[in-house]
């Protein structure tokens, strides 16, 4: 009895053991290994040979690498900039205009319609659009033919000029519902009396939109922008399904570029270097955002 009473008390730490062990095995260990592999040449078998910074020097001179990050910026435009701006407009029109001047059911139904692409696995969304944009049997081309615009038909995903805009359009379609749902939820917090007071003071719709709606849902805008930028930097599934990065490097993104080096070219060291750069970019973006947010919170406390 005495022994049991004096049993060591580890506090709550034992409950963390499974989480920490799994994290070390699945995340930290592999990540460190990946960083180290980035300094080596390795074909996936045998022993990696040390290269130092050679992979990174090669990256800086590799046009495909730069193209992949340029395309990442295009993905941010398609997944963050356009959906956030359009989403703000749609959400406040639905919330402040349709729900008040028509039955609320319309606002709910339209919101659900905008959100539907978000529930699909991104790979499946890619399949849907790969079929619509197909050069020979695709719906888009046969639609253009039917309305007499044959000259506009083209191999949307196979033409270097249209591939990236086409992929961007698909990403806008996938993403648009997310900000709408987030922003409408945020707008519910706004006191309706603020709108009424502003209306009485003669503020027009756009002024109310700018000074009340946007100002009130700052936290939601922040979350949407941060999460979609990270998603845009990581995008893989739609590229894999739609274009495999092609034609050439027209739609190549870093995640697909590293995948190619890992599993198609067996250039594991180079793939590791690419994915390490991608991870660093994502960590920096997240850190900057969190910094910025904390500073604003501090400022608002003063």
């Amino acid at each position: 009895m005495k022994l049991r009473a004096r049993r060591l008390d580890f506090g709550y730490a034992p409950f963390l053991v499974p989480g920490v062990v799994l994290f070390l095995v699945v995340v930290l260990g592999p990540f460190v290994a990946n960083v180290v592999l980035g300094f080596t040449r390795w074909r996936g078998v045998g022993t990696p040979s040390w290269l130092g910074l050679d992979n990174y020097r090669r990256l800086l001179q590799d046009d495909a690498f730069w193209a992949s990050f340029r395309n990442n910026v295009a993905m941010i435009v398609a997944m963050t900039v356009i959906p956030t701006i359009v989403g703000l407009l749609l959400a406040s029109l639905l919330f402040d205009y349709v729900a008040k001047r028509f039955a609320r059911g319309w606002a709910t139904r339209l919101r659900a319609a905008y959100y539907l692409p978000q529930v699909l696995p991104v790979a499946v969304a890619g399949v849907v659009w790969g079929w619509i944009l197909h050069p020979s049997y695709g719906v888009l081309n046969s639609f253009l033919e039917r309305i007499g615009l044959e000259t506009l038909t083209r191999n949307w995903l196979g033409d270097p000029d249209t591939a990236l805009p086409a992929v961007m359009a698909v990403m806008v379609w996938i993403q648009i519902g997310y900000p709408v749902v987030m922003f409408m939820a945020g707008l519910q917090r706004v006191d309706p009396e603020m709108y009424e007071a502003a209306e009485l003071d003669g503020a027009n719709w756009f002024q109310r939109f700018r000074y009340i709606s946007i100002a009130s849902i700052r936290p939601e805008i922040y979350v949407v922008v941060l999460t979609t930028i990270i998603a845009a930097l990581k995008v893989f599934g739609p590229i894999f399904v739609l274009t495999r990065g092609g034609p050439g490097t027209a739609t190549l993104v870093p995640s697909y570029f590293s995948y190619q080096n890992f599993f198609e070219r067996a250039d594991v060291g180079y793939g590791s270097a690419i994915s390490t750069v991608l991870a660093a970019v994502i960590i920096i973006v997240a850190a900057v955002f969190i910094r910025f947010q904390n500073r604003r919170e501090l400022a608002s406390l003063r």
Partner: protein
Amino acid sequence: MTTLVAYREPAVGPRPAPARAPRRGRLRWLVLALLILVGVVVLVPFALVVMNAFKSAEDYASNGALSFPRRLDFDSVVEFWRRVDFSRKLLNSVLISGSVAIGGSVLSLLNAFALGIGRVKGRYVFLVVFLTANLLPQESLVYPLYYLAKEVGLYDTRLSVIIIFIVIQSAFGTYLLTSVLAAFPRQIIEAATIDGATKWQVLCRVVFPLSRPTLAVLFTFFFIWTWNEFFLPLIFLVSNDNQTVPVAVGVLQGQRMMDATAQSASALLGILPAIVFFLIFQRTLTRGVTAGALK
């Protein structure tokens, strides 16, 4: 959302600005028409998929993608189902997503119990470090994981994907649940401890039952997120018997045997489960989508 009958705003009646009314009347219909048009544009791809998945190949060849099917033809759907053994893919997806949802919720609860209730030293650091599991691109983990899985004989098993996703998903779960449990009334735990309950008993009999609503949100999210995953399942589940629905549908894209109707059939079979889950989990989801933002 809470009632089955659509809630209608009570009619407000004429606004107190009759001079501006006529212009505004037309404008509001224009705005509504525009918003409906956006909705239609978003929904058109779904309609096209449904229309063409039930079309015979001859019908498609002679009448194109834009016409309604002459008669309902289930051949392409049945044919695709049979060819990829779709029941098997569904089973794999349910098994993987279900296991991850349960395992991820359990792991999140254990972590959050230590961090939120136990206030383990350095809990802020733990939280941030765990969150990197979600933040890091999977590409920066995949090759060592792939190599490791081959070494221990887990490559091309559903278990490998389950373990990896339990860890990745529980990062968000730990974060969300810790912030919920940090606000947990201390008196309840103290009372249980005074009554002689061990920490394990406090977790199972007090904290777990009271955090069920959050766990339900986590379960739903983990299930759907895992269902939708593509990259890691693509790499780890190479054999047909282990593939998930998105991988099976995504990999077949662009292959020669995929004609137009087969492709729309495959898209339909990829879409349907997602929509079914959305309808089942809708209420939990709408509650949860914004949870991350406000916590």
